[in-house]
């Protein structure tokens, strides 16, 4: 057991022990533990295996980038043990092992590592060609991290929007002082920190007593400051345009819109690079201190301290005080600062070896830990002087050689970084508007400077927002000491000196990559994959840059850094998806359709009845029954999804004439006319019916999918042309249903005050009146080819009218029909559906709709293009076709191809078997050569068989339109047997 007696300020709650399982063995921890701290407390060192070589790995940072210590619990993927809070009865196992963590058969790969140099996979496995799939299967077997659980449920999380004046990211000393100053200046502040408690480095590196005292003071002030909202265990994962920041906690994502952002995200401690620097027990000094101060865990018994900064000595003292033996301190510099800690260590006669390095760590059996550190003098050329090496037994090595800024969000915000030689660190140069940096990420290390830097950033943020009482920004003394070693990297002939722990990249991988020409930072990143692992280079990018600079003999700034993209820490899909809102649009008759057993189909955001099911009947038969009801008697269909617009004013007709291809100025009041719309390039995009209600008032319909865009475009053109008329979109406010069939008039007769007889109300007429007492606008249309009335009513009246019609129609066998039957009926009439019988390039001429295009009008959108197109030979033409009535066997389907002399000569756009006509009829877009009536052409159907079709006139049914124009006196006389 490595758990120590109570440590002041520890994060664990010893009154709440939590039992759990790891790799099949039972362990115990406390509430407040992370998985790693609990396992470390139980004396466990090896927590996982590395991605490529399956080397044992343990604690590295305890700061959310220990990606070699990922665990899974059967529910969640790739849990980061170093930061995941321990829960009672977790059943955890290490990821990506073959046969368990200890016995992992994958460890063989480590022995083979010399055969797997950087980019090895580019250089093999492809000869012979046929062998690659075999190798690939093998590779896919060993690659990847956690194993997904395919039965895990969809997790829906809330997503929140939030707003504040100043968002402070990072609640260390500088962040806290920034938040306090901003709040004092009257700003509403959100203060976020990914840790469970605020305080930042002061929670694990108390340093001098007065610091920790000022910490407790600061915490107190934050607690009582009403303007500050503290969000702990919350990570700012991404910065987006206009100060839009994604805050992610365990339960949800919060999207914050701030007026100013202060990034006080601190730094990541960086590893030194020496042989076996990845062994369990070799860790960052800050990691050891986190174990110690937050979780009261003794990280090791005997630790060699490798350092190049004052932080290392403080850490050494920390460990000594916790009862850890420190055989020596290995100082990479010629001399360290004269700090209190150094004096104290001298007092306790801890030897300090200056200008020295750890040359390698000697592994315990099976690489499961450290047995000793081999220490050598560091030569001027940065290499180890192996002649005079000494060996120190230890079970741990602490690395305190430098830091890299946690500047991911600053990068994302568009900040430019410059390299500060004094502190050997990238710091923000030019910052984007409204974004500020403070603390160590900004290059301030001295505690006083960190606090002052926070106040400085706050003052600038307040000024940025123009908040009154914004006091002058204090000036911050530039840092004089250097916390980071310029090259904490030691070569070793036998390698295994790791730079990137995610990707198992060794020092030599970088020189090899450079040797092959990947010697600029971007190419090196892509070839070696440094920084591409789950930790996104948090512990490897800086060393990679130093190594490349070393190789090319360039100063670091000239090598430059790679930009960091979101996310700063990975974000679960569940948190990004949230609840997953999917807007649905329903006509007011939806419930009626449900009651009638409708099978719905999606039409954009709408749900429309495809057909109405009846106990055990087949869809195909039901569609025919519905169609036959319309042909023989009467049917009722909900067409409420059509776009419904009104245009009113002196220029209303002018606007319609400019937007549609047809003519509307001469349309008589009380009459309707088909309307076709093309885009500026002359391509058919929409159609509908225009009705004239009065001289200056029109009501018109668009396709279901076109309604929004047609309204929008007409608004835009109307604004550009400045016509004296206004548009109203009634699509949602009006419901519409089409009562169609020879008996439709009989159904209405008893219900309405509208004079229905042909003379008073001709085909294509429109009448306002009442049906069942409801104000109704009735259009006499013939889309399905029978006597029919399209009834438009206020949405809230629709269900009432529907019921009234169904009731009145009962005696005539009225029947609701769906989209499928309507498609069949309109096909029998040869009416096209835009988007089905036309495509993204079809012109009106190709659609054989010249009749609807008035080229002699002064202007309409697309007309000028059609003038050009008209001069060209037609590329394709829409024709009606029929199959031999005797045809049996498989039939053509929509989009089967027309094949002529072995070449594609067109395609079927719509086809169906017409029970009315007792044959298969359809429409096809084909080459003009084949478009003459009675021409025979071949359609290739499924399985490649050719079927002959013949071009015929449309409409296929009731060519003269007698049925829709004038009702048939008595349907009995002209029954079309079903």
């Amino acid at each position, binding site marked *: 057991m490595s758990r120590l007696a109570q440590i002041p300020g520890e994060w664990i709650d010893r009154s709440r022990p939590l039992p759990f399982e790891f790799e099949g063995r039972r362990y115990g921890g406390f509430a407040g533990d992370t998985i790693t701290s609990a396992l470390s407390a139980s004396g466990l060192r090896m927590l996982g295996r590395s*991605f490529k070589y399956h080397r044992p790995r343990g604690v590295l940072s305890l700061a959310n980038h220990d990606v070699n210590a990922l665990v899974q619990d059967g*529910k969640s*993927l*790739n849990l980061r043990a170093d930061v995941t809070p321990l829960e009672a009865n977790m059943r955890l196992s290490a990821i*990506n092992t073959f046969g368990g963590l200890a016995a992992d058969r994958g460890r063989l790969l480590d022995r083979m590592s010399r*055969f*797997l*140099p950087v980019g*090895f*996979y*580019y*250089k093999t*496995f*492809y000869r012979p060609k046929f062998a690659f*799939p075999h190798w690939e299967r093998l*590779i*896919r*077997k060993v*690659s*990847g991290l*956690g194993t*997904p659980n*395919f039965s*895990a449920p*969809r997790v829906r999380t809330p997503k929140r929007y939030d707003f504040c004046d100043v968002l402070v990211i990072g609640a260390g000393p500088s962040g806290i002082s920034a938040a306090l100053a901003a709040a004092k200046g009257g700003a509403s502040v959100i203060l976020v920190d990914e840790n469970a408690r605020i305080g930042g480095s002061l929670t694990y590196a108390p340093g001098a007593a007065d610091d920790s005292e000022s910490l407790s003071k600061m915490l107190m002030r934050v607690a009582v400051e009403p303007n500050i909202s503290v969000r702990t265990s919350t990570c700012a994962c*991404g910065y*987006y345009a206009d100060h*839009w920041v994604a805050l992610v906690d365990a339960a949800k994502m919060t*999207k914050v819109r701030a007026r100013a952002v202060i990034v006080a995200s601190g730094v990541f401690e960086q590893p030194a690079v020496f042989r076996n620097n990845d062994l369990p027990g070799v860790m960052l000094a800050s990691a050891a201190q986190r174990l110690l101060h937050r979780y009261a865990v003794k990280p090791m018994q005997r630790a060699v301290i490798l350092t190049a900064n004052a932080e290392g000595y403080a850490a050494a003292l920390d460990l000594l005080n916790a009862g850890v033996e420190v055989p020596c301190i290995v100082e990479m510099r010629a001399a360290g600062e004269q700090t209190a800690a150094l004096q104290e260590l001298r007092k306790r006669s801890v030897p300090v070896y200056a200008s020295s390095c750890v040359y390698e760590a000697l592994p315990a059996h099976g690489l499961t830990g450290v047995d000793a550190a081999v220490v050598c003098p560091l030569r001027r050329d940065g290499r180890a002087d192996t002649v005079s090496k000494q060996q120190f037994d230890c079970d741990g090595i602490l690395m305190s050689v430098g830091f890299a800024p946690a500047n991911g969000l600053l990068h*994302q915000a568009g900040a430019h970084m410059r390299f500060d030689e004094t502190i050997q660190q990238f710091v923000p140069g030019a910052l984007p508007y409204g974004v500020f940096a403070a603390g160590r990420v900004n290059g301030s290390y001295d505690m006083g400077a960190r606090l002052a830097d926070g106040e400085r950033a706050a003052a600038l943020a307040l000024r940025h927002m123009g908040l009154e009482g914004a006091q002058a920004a204090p000036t911050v003394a530039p840092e004089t000491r250097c916390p980071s070693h310029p090259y904490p990297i030691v070569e070793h002939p036998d390698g295994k000196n790791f730079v990137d722990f995610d990707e198992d990249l060794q020092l030599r991988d970088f020189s090899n990559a450079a*040797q*092959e*020409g990947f010697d*600029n930072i*971007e*190419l090196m990143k*892509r070839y070696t994959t440094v920084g591409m692992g789950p930790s*996104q280079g948090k512990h490897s990018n800086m060393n990679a840059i130093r190594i490349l600079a070393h190789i090319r003999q360039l100063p670091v700034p000239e090598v430059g850094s790679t930009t960091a*993209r*979101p*996310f700063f820490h*990975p*974000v*679960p*899909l569940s948190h*990004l*998806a*949230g609840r*997953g809102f999917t807007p649905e649009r329903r006509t007011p008759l939806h419930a009626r359709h449900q009651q009638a057993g409708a099978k719905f189909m*999606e039409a954009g955001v709408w749900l429309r009845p495809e057909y109405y099911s009846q106990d055990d009947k087949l869809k195909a038969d039901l569609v025919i029954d519905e169609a036959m009801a319309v042909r023989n008697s009467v049917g009722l269909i909900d067409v409420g999804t059509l776009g419904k617009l009104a245009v009113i004013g002196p220029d209303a007709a002018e606007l319609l004439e400019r937007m549609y291809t047809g003519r509307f100025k001469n349309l008589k009041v009380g009459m309707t006319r088909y309307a076709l719309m093309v885009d500026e*390039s002359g391509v058919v995009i929409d159609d509908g019916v225009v009705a004239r209600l009065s001289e200056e008032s029109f009501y018109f319909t668009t396709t279901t999918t076109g309604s929004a865009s047609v309204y929008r475009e007409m608004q835009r053109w109307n604004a550009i042309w400045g016509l004296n008329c206004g548009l109203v979109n009634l699509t949602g406010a009006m419901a519409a249903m089409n009562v169609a069939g020879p008996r439709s008039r009989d159904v209405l007769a008893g219900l309405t005050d509208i004079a229905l007889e042909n003379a008073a109300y001709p085909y294509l007429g429109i009448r306002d009146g009442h049906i069942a007492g409801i104000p109704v606008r009735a259009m006499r249309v013939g889309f399905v080819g029978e006597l029919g009335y399209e009834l438009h009513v206020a949405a809230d009246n629709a269900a009432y009218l529907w019921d009234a019609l169904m009731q009145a129609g009962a005696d005539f066998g009225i029947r609701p029909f769906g989209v499928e039957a309507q498609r069949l009926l309109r096909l029998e009439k040869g009416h096209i559906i835009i988007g*089905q019988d036309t*495509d993204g390039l079809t012109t009106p001429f190709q659609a054989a709709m010249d009749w609807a295009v008035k080229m002699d009008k002064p202007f309409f959108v697309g007309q000028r293009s059609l003038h*050009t*197109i008209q001069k*060209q030979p037609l590329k394709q033409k829409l024709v009606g076709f029929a199959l031999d009535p005797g045809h049996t066997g498989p039939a053509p389907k929509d989009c*089967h191809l027309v*094949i002529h002399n072995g070449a594609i000569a067109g*395609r079927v756009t719509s086809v169906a078997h017409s029970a009315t006509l007792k044959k298969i009829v359809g429409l096809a877009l084909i080459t003009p050569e084949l478009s003459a009536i009675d021409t025979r052409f071949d359609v*290739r159907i499924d399985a490649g068989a050719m079927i002959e079709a013949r071009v015929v006139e449309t409409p296929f049914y009731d060519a003269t339109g007698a049925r829709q124009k004038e009702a048939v006196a008595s349907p009995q006389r002209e029954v079309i047997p079903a």
Partner: protein
Amino acid sequence: MPLRLLQMGLRREYREPRMFRQPEKLKPTYDVAIIGAGGHGLASAYYLARDHGITNIAVLEKGYIGGGNTGRNTTIIRSNYLTPEGVAFYDESVRLWQDLSQDFDLNLFYSTRGHYTLAHTDSALRTMRWRAEVNKHLGVDSELVGPDAVKRACPQMDLTCGGHAPVMGALFHRPGAIARHDAVAWGYGRGADRRGVEIHQKTEVLGIEVEGGQVTGLRTSRGNISTRKVLCAVAGSTPRMLDLVGMRTPITIHPLQAMVTEPMKPWLDPIIVSGSLHVYVSQSARGELVMGASLDPYELHSTRSTLDFTEGLASHMLEMFPFLSSAKINRQWAGMADMTPDFAPIMGKTPVQGFYLDAGWGTWGFKATPVCGKTMSHTVANDDDHPLIKGFTLDRFANYALTGEKGAASVGH
């Protein structure tokens, strides 16, 4: 253990040579200058040198090799297009892809995984049948399959897609593949380099000299060169380059974003695309799920990321794969897509003599890399549009003779 690895492992020191030289400075004159060291530019250089004997070539790159869309796409390769022109073109590309690793002596991890374009509506189903029929007619292996086949190929998928968009069928394209995108640029770059082509990185083109309608040279950030043939293959930067010769085209620039999860044990074998849900996803050999969606809605000449992109894509992913709720997105990025109105490229000769265009690659440029090299090298070498690109010439717009690939190209990467 492959022999090659044994050799590398047993040698004391690492003997791998440079893949591409770093020429000190520009020569005064080149037979051909290629703007853009992405896949397309380098492939063109490679085939010019290999097949047309033209080796005095400078490839000029503002940034670094393959640093543009070549290294930013989701690496999907397919030929299941809609128009005969498109299908024939991409089919030739797939044919070339399959031998590239051997050509290059570099493993591209070209992996034939099968490509399913899901249909959630009957109109989508109709388009899939159309594409399948055109593909089959031209000998491309595509067919319309039912939900059951999708279930077999991807048993982990929720075919109801959260109840919102049940899968009604799919266009199955057996040759659908993925590849290691960077390696494509490196392979072409190395191949061209070894044949004498000069690749100049960090070299920006600042001006294009034209005299009497004929290209005569380039002004670059590293000096001027004279040349009578310039190939422009710069995707998102096309409008800037065209402006230098005073040309306007229908091309507009929109960001196309993508994102990738942390690695997980490979489970997703095929490439899955859903037009209605705006998702395309495949799993790399590293175990990462590589995902994309549709274009950003408005013009933008930058590669910034947006949060709403990840939100929308995540929610659609979970409708198909609810069990991935805890899978974490590691990284998102964007490329600049040079879009055309008909979703087909703009290739070949231009009104400016000696100025050749390889552009309009929108969201479908990676898969065309080899065939672009083949056809553009032919076009440049012979000053004659290659037969395979006749449907893609710039003048098709003025002639209202567009090549309607929208049905196949939009979203369906």
